[in-house]
């Protein structure tokens, strides 16, 4: 990773993130309510977040593990999160569970 690539990337990430937060102030002078906006507000985040789960999976070598540790860790996180409703407990426990599986059973 070259320094210029690294810091330029972070800069683009920062600008894009700030844009999402300031966009409403740029686009609307007063609170905008439209059916299209409400539709997107309700459906776009779930669409994007669910697809990102699969993007995350694309980083794993699913063929080598038959997706067993991946599916098991995701199932654990769903169970934990439905039960505890605590994002941190779900993320930490499931990631450590995944790491242990990958480093022992699938090493």
């Amino acid at each position, binding site marked *: 990773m070259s320094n210029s690539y690294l810091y330029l990337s972070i800069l683009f990430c920062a600008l894009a993130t700030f844009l*999402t937060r300031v966009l*409403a102030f740029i686009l609307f002078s007063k609170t*905008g309510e439209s059916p299209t906006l409400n539709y997107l507000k309700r459906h776009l*985040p779930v669409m994007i977040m669910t697809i*990102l789960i699969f993007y995350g*999976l694309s*980083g794993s070598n699913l063929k080598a593990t038959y997706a067993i540790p991946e599916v098991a860790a995701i199932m654990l996180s769903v169970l934990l999160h439905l039960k505890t409703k605590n994002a941190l407990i779900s993320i930490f426990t499931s990631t450590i569970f995944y790491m242990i599986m990958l480093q022992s059973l699938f090493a």
Partner: protein
Amino acid sequence: MKRIFLYTIPVLMGYLPLGIAYGILAVESGVPFTAAIFMSIIVFAGSGQFLAVSLLSAHAGYFEIAVSSFLLNLRHFFYGITIMDELKHFGLRKYYIIFGLTDETFALLKTWRGNGKNKESVYFKIALLDHLYWITGSIIGATMASTITFNSTGIEFALTILFVVLTIELLRQQKNYKTFFIAIVIGILSLIFIPPSKMLLTSLTAGIIVLFFMRGIINE
């Protein structure tokens, strides 16, 4: 100030461990210590930074990094709509508050019950404290990863789990299971047919197009 600090403690309890996790993940993924902290200072987005680390270690292009950061954080646009009337009359500190409009800060600002007189200063301090918790967590995590050596194989899966948890949260609030199932189909298809380097942008674009074309079905 004491009242504001006490009010932000729940975010402190969340941002410290999550910041630590981010710091560890960033350094273990090959992002240098300084760059990891710099990101927490100028980006300030939990899941956004997890994703950025993953994209950086995959040497993604600038365009891909910008577009995916934008789409992942697009929910903040809707926060902006909800809170803009309150912030509109603030002075210069407004821009910092907008910059710091994470999920957690937004939740705190929306539920703050105090007299309206010095709201700008209160909001500014809440955003600033949350930002400091996030940076502190990142520094602790990045320091831990730089000093302790351990087998970090598989740690990048925290990103996937984070998205699973965020999806559950969204589904719980909005109960839009139809969209969820359509997204699963898109996700599986792109996992099978699209090479990993092109997968993110392609599937996100497909998802947005499908949302527009299937509006009649989804909205039923």
